[in-house]
């Protein structure tokens, strides 16, 4: 079976930019199908980070010397690149954090405790990552907010009727929902969620950790209030993530962590806060990682989301066709609008055993609950194996996966 790729996307040329992909594992060609957990890094990102450390590095923002000024420029250029990536109206709406988890915790602490009132509710969904569950439980327990959970359908799509029913009493202050499930590959209908939530007076946070890798995000077109993602899934480094929020919301929110860089002035009696986004960026940030994130964003933007989305749609279609033909396999989630994250179970083997056998053939998949235990429970499963694709994934790699899965099943006959 051949797949049609978007003209202009030369996967071989893209793969050549990822040094790690030429590795062999135990003598087998590496087939890396775990990009949803963390993506590999192109040469452009590696070089940008090494180059910064070799030629242009000092602490940023307050230095009066050449090195500090140049490093500040490079780091702040990442903010511009991120604002452009998300279609933000204003670069001051980009807050750098460590990862999506920290971004959600920031919102839960600052917006949750500072703006929301006890008795108001937060709505999440059954298909959230733990990162978009636990901070809201902590907010509930500390602040007296209610936590409501929107159901998903058996196909793995958000139950919009149920979501609307949860909004009905007008108590919901925030709807915090994934933009793309890390287990089911489901894209949620963000515009409809936003319209529905806003009609009931609720703000919306979208967890874009997966979605931003695959689709062009335009936060203004989506109408969202908060959008979060992490650098390392977008071919960038670990240790840098992004919170985007509307400027007026950020300005109303109290700071979360205190320290250097986030203040305007400090006396022992009181301190005043820096302007956004610096109000939320206490301490020396991940400077090298910010520079790496900019390189990753530039790299992704140069390829372009239309080509990325077309390639991944073709791969996903190919994978679903190949994998669904494997005897005894169950593909978890059948959403209409889905991307290249495919969870599956084999009738004869536990996900961990499947993953171990695949690993011995050089194939990297993830197995377990994927940090989504409540979703596993909802699906009546303990764990799944998961293959997830990146821009460097090829149809041949999916063929290797499918062929090997058939052999795994025979092994456990």
């Amino acid at each position, binding site marked *: 079976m051949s797949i049609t790729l978007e003209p202009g996307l030369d996967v071989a040329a893209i793969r050549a930019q990822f040094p790690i992909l030429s590795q062999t594992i*135990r003598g087998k060609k590496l087939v890396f199908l775990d990009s949803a957990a963390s993506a590999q890094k192109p040469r452009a990102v590696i070089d940008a980070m090494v180059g910064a450390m070799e030629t242009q590095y000092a602490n940023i923002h307050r230095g009066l010397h050449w090195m500090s000024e140049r490093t500040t420029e490079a780091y702040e250029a990442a903010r511009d690149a991120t604002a452009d990536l998300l279609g933000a109206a204003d670069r001051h709406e980009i807050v750098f954090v460590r990862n999506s988890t920290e971004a959600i915790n920031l919102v839960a602490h600052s917006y949750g405790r500072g703006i929301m009132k006890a008795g108001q509710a937060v709505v999440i969904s059954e298909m959230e990552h733990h990162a978009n569950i636990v901070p809201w439980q902590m907010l509930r327990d500390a602040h007296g907010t209610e936590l409501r959970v929107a159901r998903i359908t058996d196909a793995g799509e958000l139950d919009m009727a149920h979501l609307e029913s949860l909004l009905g009493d007008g108590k919901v202050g925030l709807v915090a929902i994934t933009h793309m499930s890390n287990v089911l590959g489901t894209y949620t209908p963000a515009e409809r969620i936003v319209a529905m939530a806003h009609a009931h007076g609720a703000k919306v946070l979208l967890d874009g950790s997966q979605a931003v890798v695959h689709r062009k995000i335009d936060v203004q077109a989506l109408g969202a209030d908060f959008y979060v993602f992490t650098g390392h899934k977008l071919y960038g480094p670990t240790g840098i993530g992004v919170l985007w929020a509307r400027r007026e919301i950020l300005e109303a929110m109290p700071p979360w962590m205190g320290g250097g860089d986030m203040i305007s002035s400090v006396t022992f009696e009181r301190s005043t806060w820096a302007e956004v986004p610096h109000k939320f960026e206490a301490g020396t940030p991940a400077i090298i990682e910010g520079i790496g994130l900019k390189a990753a964003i530039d790299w992704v933007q140069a390829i372009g989301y239309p080509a990325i989305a077309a390639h991944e749609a073709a791969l996903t279609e190919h994978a679903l066709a190949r994998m669904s033909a494997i005897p005894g396999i169950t593909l978890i989630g059948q959403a209409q609008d889905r991307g290249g994250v495919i969870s599956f179970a084999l009738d004869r*083997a*536990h*996900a*961990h*055993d499947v993953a*171990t*056998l695949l690993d*011995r*053939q050089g194939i990297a998949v993830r*197995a*377990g*609950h994927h940090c989504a*235990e409540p979703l*596993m429970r909802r699906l009546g499963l*303990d*764990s799944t194996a998961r293959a997830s694709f990146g821009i460097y994934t090829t149809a041949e790699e999916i063929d290797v996966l499918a062929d*090997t899965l058939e*052999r*795994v099943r025979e*092994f*456990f006959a």
Partner: protein
Amino acid sequence: MFEDVRDLYSAAIVERGRRPRHMRRLEAFDVTAKGDNPLCGDRVQVWVKLDDGRIAATGFDARGCEISKAAADLMVEAVQGHTPGDTRAMFESFRVMAQTGVCPAHQAELAAMQPLAAVHEYKSRVKCATLPWHALLAALDGKGETSSE
């Protein structure tokens, strides 16, 4: 294709994992505990009947992979008739075996568990093999729950 995994997934281990002999809840038991591996979602519960300070019967229920079930099943036979003190010492030996692949020669009870020594080549799977032991020791210590972390 998978000849290189036969060290761990030997016929004996796969058979134990597929058809464990002792995977049952004991109707009459003195102590029980649950073990949980929060990173992968594996869960096991162990029930123990004691008689005169020795393990008279052990049963388990496991939700997990072949390795964890085979390890639990073999563990039940290894600890039969032993005191909690012996069992703890046995676990220490087993843990070393699972982590290093070196089998202690002096403990005959562990001979049957030797096929699991190969798990040391699979670093991410060592906890699958040790989880049932953590649950067993938690039960003997009077703790209701434990974690492999």
